[in-house]
């Protein structure tokens, strides 16, 4: 694909200056006449000084392995309505970490760069209106009222060169490099013995690059990991999620308060019983006698009831097999409940009271029948207290609501954090490194 596109692009390219390679004799063409200072020979990859009258060799390539650019030299693409042509390509590295840079040229608008790291693309231009404000106390940089965080400091060594450039470049050239990020933007500072230069990049989606240069997306390198300046919508989503969380919880809290006022929340039965051993029955040896409570009234159909059973259990348990009986219809509502409480010098488990809810209770006169089972330590005087309230607000629902509302919030926060951890994993300034 690369060769055919390259040929096609070259057909329409205006050849402005040509000369022969002093090393191999191949014919070379220069697009950015007047600006180009060095050009590589397409045949032998030697680099030639085009400002020199005799086209002297800047670097002679011996046994150099060719690197295939994903966007062939000569390919043209439109950025904001301006046509740029790829005239140079180089690969740079920093301790085993490689990235590729494409030099773009438009005779009226000058030079731009396209950078590719691990399949992530950025469109770059030089900037001059920046004040270097990084210092020993702060490693951040301000530009156009945006705060950029220092992402990487290292070196950039030229590993491979192809095409033409507006400065004398050769393999092995190196500079100090500082990258500052405020996604989708990144500003970079390159320091050589001669100069300090700044550039600003903006993240470009892979499909956008393919569209600009009219090449297949599959022919571009596959994306890996997260780029330094790759924008993330997860932070925005997290803020949104938190907003919805607050709205939902606030709404439900108010609704809960409203129903606390509206509902009867009426105590319909509350009685304390001393449990007596059942000596009369031969089958119930060691058991407490059954209890039948007094009658009580529940008003209003289909109301809920809250039942609480308390007992003075102590390293023991009491199971109360309760049945609420409608006096008129004989309908029974089973409400088994267990109270158990265990403790040691520094621990405890269970509670001396347990509650439960029953729903859709028809209005009427009721009484309760209770049978008991017990276990654990023997208690000489055991009591049981039964308390019933009708038409209550169930507070537990609000706790469950908070739990459920927290799940998407926590998941989004974790996803956002994981994205940032991945982003910073390639950084020399990784804030997550210590964790």
């Amino acid at each position, binding site marked *: 694909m690369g060769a055919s596109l390259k040929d096609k692009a070259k057909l329409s390219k205006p050849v402005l200056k040509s000369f022969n390679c002093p090393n191999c004799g191949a014919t070379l063409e220069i697009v950015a006449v007047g600006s180009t200072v060095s050009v590589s020979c397409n045949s032998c990859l030697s680099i030639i000084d085009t400002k020199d009258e005799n086209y002297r060799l800047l670097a002679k390539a011996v046994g150099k392995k060719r690197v295939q650019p994903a966007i062939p030299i000569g390919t043209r693409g439109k950025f904001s309505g301006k046509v740029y042509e790829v005239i140079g390509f180089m690969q740079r590295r920093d301790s085993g970490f490689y990235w590729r840079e494409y030099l773009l040229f438009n005779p009226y608008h000058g030079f731009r760069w396209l950078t590719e790291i691990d399949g992530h693309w950025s469109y770059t231009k030089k900037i001059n209106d920046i004040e270097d404000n990084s210092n020993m106390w702060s490693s951040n940089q301000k530009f156009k009222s945006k705060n950029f965080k220092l992402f990487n400091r290292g070196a950039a060594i030229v590993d491979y060169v192809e095409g033409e450039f507006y400065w004398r470049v050769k393999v092995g050239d190196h500079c100090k490099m500082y990258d500052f990020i405020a996604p989708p933007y990144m500003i970079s500072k390159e320091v050589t013995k001669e100069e300090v230069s700044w550039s600003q990049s903006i993240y470009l989606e892979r499909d956008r690059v393919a569209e600009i240069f009219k090449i297949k997306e599959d022919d571009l390198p596959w994306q890996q990991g997260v780029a330094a300046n790759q924008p993330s919508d997860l932070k925005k*989503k997290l803020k*949104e*999620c938190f907003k*919805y*969380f607050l*709205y*939902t919880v606030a*709404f*439900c809290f108010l*609704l*809960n308060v409203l*129903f606390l006022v509206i*509902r009867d929340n009426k105590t319909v039965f509350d009685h304390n019983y001393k449990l007596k051993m059942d000596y009369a029955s031969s089958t119930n040896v060691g058991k407490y006698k059954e209890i039948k409570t007094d009658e009580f009234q529940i008003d209003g159909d289909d*109301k*809920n009831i809250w039942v609480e059973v308390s007992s003075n259990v102590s*390293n023991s*348990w009491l*199971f109360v*097999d309760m049945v609420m009986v409608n006096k008129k219809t004989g309908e029974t509502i089973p409400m*088994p*409940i*267990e109270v*158990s409480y*265990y403790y*040691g010098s520094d*621990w405890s*488990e269970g509670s001396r009271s347990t509650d*439960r*809810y029953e*729903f859709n209770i028809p209005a009427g006169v009721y009484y309760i029948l209770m049978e008991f*089972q017990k*276990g*654990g330590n023997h208690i000489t005087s055991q009591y049981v207290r039964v308390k019933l309230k009708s*038409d*209550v*607000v*169930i507070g*537990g*629902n*609000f706790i*469950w*609501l908070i739990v*459920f*509302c927290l799940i*998407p919030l926590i998941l*989004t926060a974790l996803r956002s954090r994981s994205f940032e951890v991945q982003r910073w994993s390639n950084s020399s300034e990784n804030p997550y490194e210590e964790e």
Partner: protein
Amino acid sequence: MKVLYIIFAVYFSYLTMFGKSFWSPKYKRAKPKTKTTRYYHK
């Protein structure tokens, strides 16, 4: 995300208005338990 929170709010409103509970423990008749299983499990 918005839809999810609306569902949560609507379901909670339903539970509150109709006096229902999202979850309540179910107690079954206790099987005889020994001191060993209950007391010394910590």
